[in-house]
């Protein structure tokens, strides 16, 4: 774009052409080479080594939804980063948490945030929650070529639906397949199997916001307990899970102190009961 505006200085025709309110459609028209899906990859043997982010969990409660993620990124059997952030606000009423290739995931989130903001500015109205979820689906599908080379990105999308007045969770598969989680919880990433097991036993549909934030940290703890790629609370370095809450007041990320308090109270209980809270047998 810079090159195009420079020789005459005026906005190129593509900028002033009426049409789509989508930023990605505009890029496809004007500068397709910077869209992630349009990159040509050289043929490769085997998988590419790059940092991978791991576990994301989400839980709904009456009045909203909680989305949280651990802080570890791994590369093979190495820890690539201890304090990576994998949960981001998408806009005022939604958030996205990503597992998979960290670099591509962050780029996808950046473009997704921009896509929602751009639509909002051009149209003067926000997309429906379904509309946002579908947009994300398209972007994951655009990454399919990369995913087949081992560079997959698999997000969880959570938001507060202002029309239906409730929190909703959408999970995805690597091909962009989208499914809404009606059971009230979802997880993605390498530790998701264990996190989902924990949530299945702890979840009920009358949780308060405080209980919901505790539940997600419990689930992440259980994931870290059994999956080496998921990081548990790091008390020494003061690195705690990122916990975000979306209600009709909008998106809010818990402060480090709030997140630390939850993690510490769980750690304290686990000193006596290392496997965490027990569910009734019958």
């Amino acid at each position, binding site marked *: 774009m810079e090159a195009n505006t420079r020789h005459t*200085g005026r906005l190129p025709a593509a900028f002033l052409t009426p049409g789509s309110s989508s930023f990605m459609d505009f890029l496809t028209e004007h500068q397709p080479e910077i869209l992630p899906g349009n990159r040509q990859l050289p043929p490769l043997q085997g998988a590419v080594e790059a940092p991978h982010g791991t576990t994301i969990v989400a839980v709904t409660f009456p009045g909203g939804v909680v989305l949280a993620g651990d802080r570890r990124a791994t590369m093979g059997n190495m820890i690539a980063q201890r304090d990576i952030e994998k949960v981001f606000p998408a806009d005022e009423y939604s958030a996205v948490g990503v597992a998979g290739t960290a670099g591509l995931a962050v780029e996808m989130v950046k473009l997704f945030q921009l896509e929602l903001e751009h639509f909002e500015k051009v149209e003067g109205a926000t997309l429906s929650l379904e509309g946002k979820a579908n947009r994300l689906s398209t972007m994951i599908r655009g990454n399919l070529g990369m995913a087949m080379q081992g560079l997959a990105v698999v997000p969880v999308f959570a938001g507060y639906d202002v029309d239906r007045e409730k929190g909703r969770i959408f999970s995805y598969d690597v091909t962009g397949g989208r499914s809404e989680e009606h059971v009230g919880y979802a997880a993605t990433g390498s530790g998701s199997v264990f996190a989902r097991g924990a949530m299945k036993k702890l979840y009920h549909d009358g949780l308060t916001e405080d209980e919901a934030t505790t539940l997600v940290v419990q689930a992440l703890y259980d994931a870290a307990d059994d999956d080496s790629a998921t990081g548990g609370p790091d008390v020494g370095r003061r690195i705690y899970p990122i916990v975000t809450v979306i209600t009709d007041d909008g998106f809010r990320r818990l402060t480090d102190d709030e997140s630390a308090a939850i993690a510490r109270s769980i750690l304290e209980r686990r000193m006596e009961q290392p496997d965490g809270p027990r569910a009734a047998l019958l």
Partner: protein
Amino acid sequence: MSTPFYVSPQQQMADRAEYARKGIARGRSLVVLQYADGIVFVGENPSRALHKFSEIYDRIGFAAAGKYNEYENLRIGGVRYADLRGYTYDRDDVTARGLANVYAQTLGTIFSSAAEKPYEVELVVAEVGVTREGDQIYRLPHDGSIVDEHGSLAVGGNAEQISTYLDQHHSDSMTLAEALKLAVRALSRDTNGSEREIPAERLEVAVLDRTRPQKRKFKRIVGRQLSRLLDEGGSTDAPSDTEPEADAE
């Protein structure tokens, strides 16, 4: 068959400028004011759907008078320019100065190209700074020039008279309610000096508020908040009476 006759370049440009100015003057005026916590946009707009003011980027707002389809096109162009620039570099690299330059080039090229009809628009690009000294307001007339403005300005039909009135009464340390009240008073003055009432439903108001915690500082003021601010402005009418001109009304 009519024979083509000679028109001097001076005359041609003067005609084009006249044409654009007339188009802009047909629209209702709008004003942009600096106040203590940011920049406020106020205009008379009976439509709820067709906005005169909009958000371009985090700290940048856009206001326009004139022909709707033309400035709407420029607005969307500006949003695309800002979003692409922020995506390519960083959000901090999108500035009102850069955007104003691109708009000036665009308007200037269109104005001087004989193949295109001149745009009948006058734009304002404003950026709210971290402090009042960092605020920037640029006015872009139809011909592609840029005017760096401070304090207050008016564009549209009755602009000259309104901005004289604003200059006399405006101060940078005004609260939002005071600035809003002043803007409404300025807008309700007719060409012949008489005043008319503009009801709150016909006002379009937006602010770039530097105290907003979100990174996006643009906010529309509508409904209850607007009428509350207008009432609040009314109750603080007494202190503004300290200005001699305010008494004269």
